[in-house]
Structure formats: C-alpha cells, structure tokens
C-alpha cells in the first residue's frame, strides 16, 4: 500500500431507479488522492458530492466504476471485492456536517468504540482515545457526553474517532457547516495537519470558500459530473 494513492476512483457512475424514474446522480467521476493530500470537493446541493463520498467511503457502492484504497481494489461496480464493514473500520474515517457522535457514550468512549470494534483491547483503546483527544485539544472533555459539548468540541471528538484506527483516507462531508468561521478554519487546518503528519488522504466536501487555502487540490461537481479545478496553495 505504501506508494499507491490513498484513493483511486475511476469512472464512478451511480444510477438510482430505472426506466422513467431513472436518475443519474453521478456520471463517470474519477479522482485520485495521494497520501497526505488534502482535496476539496465543491458544488451546489444535489450535485452528487455526497453520492461520490458515499461511493469512495464504501457506504453506497456505485453502479459502475472502480474504487481502490491504498492500492487495494475494493469495489468493482456494485460488487465488493472484500468485506466492506471490516475494510471501512480499518481504513476509512468519516467526519460529518453534524458531529454524529453516539449520544450515550462520552467523548472518550466515542473514540474508544472505534478502536474496540477494530479489535483493540479496552485498555489500549482507552489510552489511545485519550491521546487523540489530547492531540485535538478536548482531553478535558473526555468524560462528558456529546450533549455537554459545544459544536466545535463535538466535531473535534468526531475527528478523533475518524482518526482512531489511523485510516488511509479521511472523508469529511461539510464538517464546518455547523461551526463559526474561526472554528471552521481551525477544523480545516486540522485536516491539513492530519494529512501531512499521518499521510492520510483527505477529501472534504465544503461550501466554505474561506478555507480553500488549506487544500492541495480542488474538485467541483455539478449535475453529477466531477471536474478538477485548480491547485490550491498550502499554507
């Protein structure tokens, strides 16, 4: 997996329904994300960004096209070439617009559960969860439930969870939408830092034009068609 791209998506097409009700949500979309690269995906609502993210995140396989992660072929059209839950657990991290934390687990446990699902012992998982929360500056909130955290703190916990198993790729769907501009910028910069420090390929769906400077590459999507726009300047 070492030198191969973090993500290689080739010719992804997603069709919902059939006949008169057929809708093409994504058409022949291709993207390559190198390790340590931070990619922005722009586009209006309903353009197919989330569909693309769901496909490369192995949540909702495409109708056709291929997805490889870390050099390993995972999807060939709708056909999974390996166990998707297990692969997702080990290699894919997700961050959403809303923090999407499990409401009955505290901040530490929300991170710890991702590790325990990946067969880490409870003690090791606990230590790593606390370390990640410390790195993300929310260690003091580790025993608090999500309902007791601010939006920014919740998003940081969610990022810690996404990073828990040192994934090959990190997929973020409008992660700053619920945050103020300062916290939004901090989160975006955090993604860039993670990508550079861990060699993780990061794809961020965003509308936030103010934070585009952190991205290496920008893609845009419109009517299901993905196109590479320009090279951003990393700060």
């Amino acid at each position: 997996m070492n030198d191969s791209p973090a993500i290689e998506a080739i010719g992804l097409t997603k069709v919902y329904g059939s006949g008169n009700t057929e809708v093409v949500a994504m058409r022949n979309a291709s993207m390559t994300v190198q390790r340590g690269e931070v990619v922005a995906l722009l586009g209006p609502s309903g353009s197919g960004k989330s569909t693309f993210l769901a496909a490369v995140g192995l949540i909702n396989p495409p109708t056709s096209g291929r997805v490889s992660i870390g050099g390993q072929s995972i999807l060939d059209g709708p056909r999974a070439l390996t166990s998707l839950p297990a692969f997702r657990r080990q290699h894919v991290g997700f961050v959403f617009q809303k923090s999407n934390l499990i409401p009955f687990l505290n901040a530490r446990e929300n991170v710890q559960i991702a590790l325990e699902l990946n067969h880490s012992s409870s003690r090791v998982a606990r230590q790593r969860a606390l370390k990640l929360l410390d790195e993300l500056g929310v260690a003091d909130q580790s025993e608090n439930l999500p309902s007791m955290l601010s939006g920014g703190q919740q998003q940081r916990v969610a990022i810690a969870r996404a990073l828990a198993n040192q994934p090959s790729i990190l997929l973020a769907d409008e992660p700053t939408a619920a945050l103020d501009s300062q916290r939004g910028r901090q989160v975006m910069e955090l993604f860039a830092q993670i990508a550079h420090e861990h060699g993780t390929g990061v794809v961020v769906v965003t509308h936030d034009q103010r934070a585009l400077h952190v991205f290496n590459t920008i893609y845009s999507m419109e009517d299901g068609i993905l196109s590479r726009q320009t090279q951003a300047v990393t700060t």
Partner: protein
Amino acid sequence: MNLALKDIRHNLGRFTLTGVGVGMLLMIVMGMGGIYRGIVEDATLLIDRIGADLWVVQHDTRGPFAEVSRVPASLVHRARAVPGVMNAREFVYHTIQRERDGKPFRMSVLGLSWPDDKGDWVPLIAGRPLAQNHFETIVDESLGVRLDERLTFGKETYRVVGITRNMISSGGDGIAFFTVADAESIQFDSSGEAVRLEQAARKNRAEQSDIGTKQPTLVEQASKPSYELPAIARPQISAVIVQVAPGSSVEQVATTLSGWSDVSVHTRVGQTELLLKGSVDKARRQIGLFRVLLTIIAAVIMALILYTLTLDKLHTIALLKLIGAPNMVVLGLILQQALVLGGVGFGIAYFLGQQLFPLFPRRVIVTNEDLWQLAGIVLAISIASSLLGIWKALRVQPSEALS
C-alpha cells in the same frame, strides 16, 4: 465496552419505567401460576392433613368435597367391625354463609369425631385443640375471628379456642372445626317455631293413622323431641373416615367396604384425584389458559417496547455500521437489552409478588419450580421479542447515518 449497558445507563429513567411495566405484567403471570398452585394446595391440604386411608361415602357419590354425601352415623360402627380397620371416625363437612358485622360470613364447617379426634392434627398458630364435646371451635385465621371470641350459630354460641392457618376449603373459604355434634347442630338448626310445627304435624299424622287410633300412647310419643324418638334416626353425617391398621392391606379393606351396596369407598389418592379432576379442574384450565394468554401478551408488549427502543436508536445503529461495527455488535446490543429488560422485569415481578401476593384473598403459592419455569419463559420471550428489533436494526444501512 458494553453498548447495551451504556445505553441503558443513559436512558435509565425510561428503561426503569419500562422494566417496572414489564415486571408488573410478569407479576400477574407469576400470580396466575401461584393462584393455581394455591387452589390445588387448598383442595388437597385437608385430605392430606386428615390422613385417612379410606373415605366411606354415600353410594355413587364422589365424597364430601366434590358433592353432597349423606351416610347414617351408625356406619362408623359397621366400619369399625371390618377386619383390618384400626380406627373409623365420623366426618361432617358443609359450607354455611351467615352475616357478621353486616357482611357475608362464609365458612366451611368440619366436624371432628369427639372424643377420638380433638383436632390435635390441626396446625395451630394460637390457642389449643378442642377440650369439650360442645361449644368450642378452632377457626382459620382467614375468617378474621379472634381467639376467645364468641360466634353464634342458630341457638348456640361457640367459643374460639384455637386459630389455625391455611386451612382453606377447595372453594376458598376458611374452615372452622367443631365436634361432629356441634357441626350437625349448625347444619340442622331449626327455629323453635319450626320444631313446634313439626311436632304438631307429627302428632296430627299419628292421630289420623290407624295405628295412632289403636295405640294412643304413640300419639303421645309423637309430641316428644325427635332425639327421644327411636323411630327417628340421628342426623346423617357426610362420610366415615377409616384408618387401616399397620400391616393390613388398604386395598383389601377397601374391597370389603365396597361390598356394601349403600356406600362407595375412595382411597386418599382417589379422593384427591376426584377433587382435582372435578371442581378444581375447571379453575385449573381457566387459569392455565389465562396464563398462556398473559404470557403471549407480555411477549407482544416486550417486542413492541424493544422495537420502539430500536427505532429510537436507528441513527446510532447506522453510525455504528458506518464506523465498521459488524452485525453481531448491533444484534448483541438489542439482544442484551432485551435480556436485561426481561431480567429486570422478572426481578421486579418477584419483588412485587412477595409484597402483594400475601394480601390476596386466596393463597398464592409460588414454588421454586414455578419461578424457574417462569424464568425460562421470560428468557424465551426476551429472545423472541428482540427479533423484531433485530430484524429492523439489521436492515439499517450505514448511509442512513449521513442523513
């Protein structure tokens, strides 16, 4: 990390209330079984305590507990003469309903064959057995009568000399023990006017008959109290209870007694079976069916509760799947909650039952065997009721976490 317990702890109030609801439902299931046990126990207790080997009853009847049986009091002497009989006693048993403090006062009257039987076998919680042939009684505590209290039946007053516990008839009425003579007095009590009318009617019949005209002394005799008239038999008794001498065969004695065409003979086991298959059987089947229905209802309610709890967690389940949780984790989450709910419900049912069952008018007997059986049923319905929730949870797609 145990997700089921974490979720329960987070929703403790809601889960506790649900557990109490399930527990109360299970308590009723438990109580139904206990009521049935109580009926059987009450029905057979007396037969067991009396300890007779054979019951000699009116021909073609099933004994005093199943139906009315009348045999002459002299039958006891005939029974005593049979080889192998160690002891034969009169047995009188009937149920009366009077009024006490403006409320119905219902009890079963059992006659003890004084002086052979003074009620020494009756388990007393206060007082003593009978010490004289008349005007004393031992009563079950369920009748609400105090020691040394006086009870008036007909023209006589009886002193409560002993209090017993759990001596209940198959109909659920508390039993009061009298001597046979007193039990008969209570049963055949007539008012003074009725006695006078009967004497006058007897005299009138004698006067109008040929024999009365030819023998005027007979007319004179007819006016006397009935117990002074040799032509009028003593009041009949319900049965004669027989104890067979050690070393003698119960079957052989029973065969001998059965040869008398005016009586029927039942063994202790036979009498118990007749009782259980007779009056108790319908109650048993009714309660049994009700219990089955309640069990099904409990399972349906638990299934709906668990399904609702699962619906509330669909987003969390989708999220768990998204971060790679295998189906077994999700299945375990719901199944463990179902088992905890069943366990908590069972515990609450047991606790509430212990507090409430003694307040029931009839005995509710919950045996260890019944508890284990119910625990098995709760386990089964917990698993069964979680299936709907599991089915729903397994259909949740990870992509639903994105919505």
